[in-house]
């Protein structure tokens, strides 16, 4: 048989229709074109999706931290500061079910929580729960060392208050979100608050930052704030108040110290207080800043004002004799004194705190003029010191006063004020007749005041106030060693329901020192003293005495009484020889 070549094989030479191969070729061509178009699309206009995906993989927006401003006292001592802390978070999905029980025990111990509580949190439906916030960094480090999967630590800040309860009502506190809740922290939250920033970065596979792209928002630390409070004086005032409240088993108390020259609040203390560093089971009683938010009838501490007005108008002189008598019949109930007096001078009316004498003087005054004075010294208006919760007190318009109202108001009934308002009003006697604008922020310059009464009247009243602390006065206990002091006691019945409680009192003392050149006004209030007397002179005046002597010493004010000036040195720095001479003289 003749061999048949491949090309001549009858099977192969079977001719296929030409269009089939053409079609194949065309289809292949179309497929390639589609691929090219797709490739072009992905790299060109349609790349947004992939780009976003890539960016998500390598770019992150991270927070830039900023710290809340510090609060300092007038000498630059810390009152509040923010320190780094950690929030412990459980990512519940990542926590292994077979976690060793001793790890939970250790964790519970570190977090000061019960194991049951931790297990409950782990079982939470949400996949991210806070176990505890504001944990100390050292404890957080120990938690990290436990290496429990699914436990994360987040950065945050915790506020610390080194002065603790002595300063609690002034500074207040912040919540876990670092926002002010009370006191200065609340009042000046805007200035103190930090603005965290944001930046966009490139991260590598391990999450390390390898490049900066942009800062989206610059972080801004909060501003530091300097208060007028002196932590030393604050401590003195708080301690003196606290021991008096405890000694007399009182319900509460308040004390305030004002710098007469600058109008700065040097101390503002309240009792009961709380520790702002650990605020568990806080009650409203503890939180109340009584000095600013509680109003009460000031009782006899009001007397200097109508008496000063009578002096100012020339109706009487300090030595003018007045007939006092057993009682004064004005209004529904006669006005009486604790001791009956026959005759008293105007000065003695203040010294012995005679209700009848004051009422008789007040009744010589026009109601409008008395109201004008009360309003001018700030009664019935909230003091403007930039602090939350300051109250106005109550001062009825004079058109509504009857004779009895006017008489009783002159010794502090039917009018109400906060302790702070009372202290501020007394600056008119300390500042030779000027009312000083007050502030809680440091501003150590001498402030011009508003003239209310003449310097002559103010000095006369100051001398009368000094007699209160001298033999025959109501507050010998207010005396401060080395300093001439003056002030006025007050003991007011507390209002209960519609009338006055017969056995509940408020002991008050407001005074100034040193008399020769007043530097501070101090007001003290003790609420419901129940043991060891209830008169202002027994309860509040000793607190005044302690605060005054320690404060003036801390302010380097030289004593104006019984001082033993031994040497008139030509210069401030005494030489050794003068010192020796002094020693010899002794």
């Amino acid at each position, binding site marked *: 048989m003749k061999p048949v070549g491949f090309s001549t094989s009858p099977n192969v030479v079977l001719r296929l229709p030409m269009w089939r191969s053409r079609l194949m070729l065309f289809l292949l061509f179309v497929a390639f074109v589609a691929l090219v178009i797709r490739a072009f699309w992905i790299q060109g206009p349609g790349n947004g999706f992939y780009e976003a995906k890539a960016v998500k993989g390598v770019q992150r927006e991270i927070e830039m931290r900023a710290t809340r401003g510090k609060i300092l006292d007038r000498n630059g001592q810390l009152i509040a500061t923010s320190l780094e802390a950690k929030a412990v978070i459980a990512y519940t999905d990542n926590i292994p079910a077979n976690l060793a029980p001793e790890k939970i025990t250790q964790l519970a111990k570190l977090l000061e929580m019960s194991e049951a509580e931790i297990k409950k949190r782990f079982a939470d439906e949400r996949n991210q729960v806070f176990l505890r916030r504001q944990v100390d960094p050292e404890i957080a480090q120990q938690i990290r060392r436990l290496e429990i999967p699914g436990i994360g630590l987040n950065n945050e800040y915790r506020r610390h208050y*080194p002065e603790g309860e*002595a300063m609690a009502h002034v500074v207040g506190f912040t919540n876990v979100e670092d926002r002010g809740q009370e006191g200065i922290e609340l009042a000046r939250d805007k200035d103190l608050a930090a603005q965290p920033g944001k930046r966009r970065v490139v991260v590598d596979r391990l999450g390390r*930052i390898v490049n900066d792209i942009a800062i989206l928002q610059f972080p801004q630390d909060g501003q530091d704030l300097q208060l007028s409070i002196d932590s030393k004086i604050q401590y003195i005032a708080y301690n003196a108040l606290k021991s008096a409240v405890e000694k007399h088993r009182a319900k509460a108390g308040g004390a305030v110290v004002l710098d007469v020259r600058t109008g700065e609040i040097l101390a503002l203390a309240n009792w009961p207080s709380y520790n702002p560093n650990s605020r568990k089971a806080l009650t409203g009683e503890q939180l109340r800043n009584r000095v600013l938010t509680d109003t009460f009838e000031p009782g006899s501490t009001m007397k200097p004002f109508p008496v000063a007005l009578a002096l100012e108008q020339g109706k009487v002189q300090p030595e003018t004799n007045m007939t006092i008598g057993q009682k004064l019949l004005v209004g529904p109930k006669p006005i009486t004194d604790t001791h009956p007096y026959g005759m008293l001078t105007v000065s003695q009316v203040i010294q012995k705190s005679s209700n009848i004498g004051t009422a008789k003087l007040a009744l010589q005054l026009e109601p409008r003029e008395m109201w004008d004075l009360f309003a001018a010294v700030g009664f019935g208006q909230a003091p403007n010191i930039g602090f939350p919760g300051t109250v106005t007190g109550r001062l009825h318009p004079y058109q509504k006063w009857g004779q009895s109202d006017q008489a009783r108001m002159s010794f502090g009934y039917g009018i109400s004020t906060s302790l702070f308002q009372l202290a501020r009003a007394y600056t008119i006697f300390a500042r030779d007749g000027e009312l000083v604008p007050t502030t809680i922020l440091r501003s150590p310059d001498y402030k011009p005041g508003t003239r209310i009464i003449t310097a002559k009247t103010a000095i006369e009243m100051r001398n009368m106030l000094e007699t209160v602390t001298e033999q025959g006065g109501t507050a010998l206990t207010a005396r401060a060693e080395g300093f001439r002091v003056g002030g006025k006691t007050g003991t007011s019945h507390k209002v209960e329901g519609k009338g006055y409680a017969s056995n509940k009192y408020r002991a008050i003392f407001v005074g100034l020192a040193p008399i020769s050149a007043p530097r501070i006004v101090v007001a003290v209030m003790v609420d419901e003293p129940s043991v060891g007397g209830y008169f202002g002179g027994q309860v509040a005046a000793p607190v005044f005495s302690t605060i005054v002597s320690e404060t003036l010493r801390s302010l380097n004010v030289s004593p104006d009484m019984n001082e033993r000036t*031994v*040497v008139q040195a030509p210069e401030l720095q005494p030489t050794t020889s003068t010192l020796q001479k*002094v020693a010899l003289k002794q």
Partner: protein
Amino acid sequence: MNRATLSLLVLLLICALSLVTSQQKTRKLFVSLERAQAQERKLNQEWLRLEFEQRNLSKSARIRDVARNQLRMSPITPDRTLYFKEGL
């Protein structure tokens, strides 16, 4: 012509390599900058903590306690104090 192409190629290679090294340098510098910034933050925090600690140690309550109980000091009183007056 050929030489020009060759030298351009060499130049291109040099440029490409220097780009790589400078990129590397940037990364390195960036990392150390980040590290320094972290260090700054840490030191700042440390300073705040120390300031707080110092404040805790200089609290009036503590000073009073130490002065009274450990050093056995007592407050000054005007009757055993000498006052020097500035003047002629």
